[in-house]
């Protein structure tokens, strides 16, 4: 992962992007009076700066596991280590001030202004007023809210999406090395959820926190997680893997069912068009000698030649008549639609092909020049290959700029 320096406007603050490693070591929670543990000998390691998603059906102990980290729930057996130190050795309130905490219901304080909400933990830690005010404005900008408009308002005056952003800003207030997020986008409508997820991934690209993210939604898990821990009833770890591995090699029938029968399609959401080997088309121009054209066609992967303009931009698929004379003529069998881009997500590209009722789509680069052709065969071949590297939705968003 490349450390990103392309966004100079967000200057690093407070210990410059510190992140902690987190390790569950046989962590177990057994509630008194119950026979079966809620979390059962959970062991996993989250490297610093990565997002670990805990996912599973309701009652699988994912929230319990998360809440054991900041000791909102006490650990019955085993241990959880933050940067190698047991959380059990820490005073709960001190520990919690060092860990960002964002929950689905947000839990903003209705009686405090937005700036007082965000400034809660800094105030507990004894920051002076000027420093808190500065930090509040900085965080509001970080989560795409206008500080002047927002800071003196009360939570009731904001929309659900804005409140959620404030919740994230508040969790980030003292630049904690670890963030706990319990279904933070669960109560948001689908469109805004998608936007908040993308924003969050972009934010993470800048702040590089270690994040424990709880969700019941496998699609969200695949999109958000660097690593995904699938839990099943009784708080047992069913699989801990990267999104691509999880989709390709589900460890059990439970995981297979949980990721869904469309897991192959889900893998497409983790790739961009540029990531796979495209077919080479025969790129012909009007007036080109037919003999040369035929050689190009023989050398290409696509049976139908593609007409391009003088800049190499796609014009359309040529018919046989176009090659009947000495020179290539502009007889099109069909327009070159859809035109795909190198940066398109593979799943969207496939959808475009299917919508266009075509098997081939020219892929253009940023200048509009044809760089290759995506075909249904290419996609189908890709799905049969094992994942070459562990990729995640988070990587995709990171690459975006």
């Amino acid at each position, binding site marked *: 992962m490349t450390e990103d320096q392309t966004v100079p406007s967000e200057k690093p603050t407070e210990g410059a992007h510190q992140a902690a490693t987190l390790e569950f070591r046989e962590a177990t929670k057994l509630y008194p009076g119950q026979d079966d543990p809620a979390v059962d000998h959970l062991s996993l390691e989250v490297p610093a700066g990565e997002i670990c998603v805990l996912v599973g059906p309701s009652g699988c102990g994912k929230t319990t596991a998360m809440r054991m980290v900041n000791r*909102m729930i006490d650990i019955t057996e085993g241990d959880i280590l933050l940067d190698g130190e047991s959380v059990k050795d820490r005073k709960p*309130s001190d520990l919690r001030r*060092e860990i960002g905490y964002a*929950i689905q219901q947000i*839990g903003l*304080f209705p009686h405090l202004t937005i700036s007082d909400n965000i400034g*809660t933990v800094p105030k*507990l830690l004894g920051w002076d007023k000027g420093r808190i005010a500065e930090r509040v404005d900085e965080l509001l900008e970080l989560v795409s809210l206008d500080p002047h408009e927002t800071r003196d308002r009360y939570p*009731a005056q904001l929309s659900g999406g804005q409140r959620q952003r404030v919740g994230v800003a508040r969790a980030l207030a003292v630049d904690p090395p670890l963030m706990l997020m319990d279904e933070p986008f669960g109560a948001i409508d689908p469109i805004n959820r998608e936007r908040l997820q993308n924003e969050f991934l972009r934010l993470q690209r800048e702040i590089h926190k270690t994040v424990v993210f709880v969700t019941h939604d496998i699609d969200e898990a695949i999109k958000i997680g660097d690593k995904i821990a699938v839990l099943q009833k009784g708080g047992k770890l069913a699989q801990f893997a990267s999104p691509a591995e999880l989709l390709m090699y589900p460890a059990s029938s439970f995981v297979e069912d949980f990721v869904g029968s469309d897991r192959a399609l889900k893998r497409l959401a983790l790739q961009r068009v540029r990531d796979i080997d495209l077919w080479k088309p025969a790129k012909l121009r009007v007036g080109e000698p037919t003999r040369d054209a035929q050689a190009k066609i023989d050398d290409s992967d696509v049976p139908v030649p593609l007409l391009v303009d003088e800049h190499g931009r796609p014009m359309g698929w040529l018919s046989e008549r176009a090659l009947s004379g000495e020179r290539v003529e502009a007889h099109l069998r069909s327009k070159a639609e859809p035109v795909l881009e190198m940066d398109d997500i593979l799943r969207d590209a496939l959808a475009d092909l299917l919508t266009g009722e075509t098997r081939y789509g020219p892929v253009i680069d940023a200048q509009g020049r044809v760089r290759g052709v995506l075909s249904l065969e290419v996609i189908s071949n890709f799905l049969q290959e094992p994942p070459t590297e562990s990729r995640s939705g988070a990587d995709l968003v990171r690459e975006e700029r």
Partner: protein
Amino acid sequence: MVFDSLAQVPERDTGASDQCVAEDGFCPQWIVDNFGDYVQPLLDHTYLTVVTVVIGFAIAFSLAILAHRQRWLTGPIIGFTGALYTIPSIAAFFLLLPITGRGNTTALVALVAYTLLIIFRNVTTGLRAVPAETVDAAQGMGLTDRQVLWRVELPLALPEILAGVRIATTTTVGLVALAYLAGGDGLGRQIDAQITFKSNVALAGGLCVLLAAVLDLIILGVQRRATPWMRAAS
């Protein structure tokens, strides 16, 4: 002076004041002339009310905080303060007389007892109405139990708490009027002194009502100032 309230005695419209007084009527001129005699009783009444509510609040609030930490105490405390609440005030005064003697102390003890149930109930209701996720977020951010209570739960319960204080205050203004039965001060003694004289009863009674209204408005004002966020919901 327009004596329209004296419509029932229209034939005495000149030099009516003395006549009016002699007939125990409602005599505005007499009220204006004798208002000075009611200032001290009014101050005593105010004092007794405020002291009662302050002490009652201190006790009930402490009990409510205790019950908030130890939930099982809520039932017994409601039971006990509820029992106190049902004792007729006159009976309470006479029960206390052998212990505390005649005077303001006896009145205070009984009056305080009546405020406990109202204030206790409102404080506990207010604390319970605080959204669970707000408390969860506060704890998760590292506020200690005490900080959660004072910085989150109590501020959010404040409207409910002050609503209880308002009811208790209004009730107490009315009950202080009976404090004279225990030998206490206040407008009640004034009413009792000339209970058949309409002007006296109207003046002393009117001052009671006025006092209750003013105190209520003051607490309401405090509440509005202390909870600007209540009006922020748009």
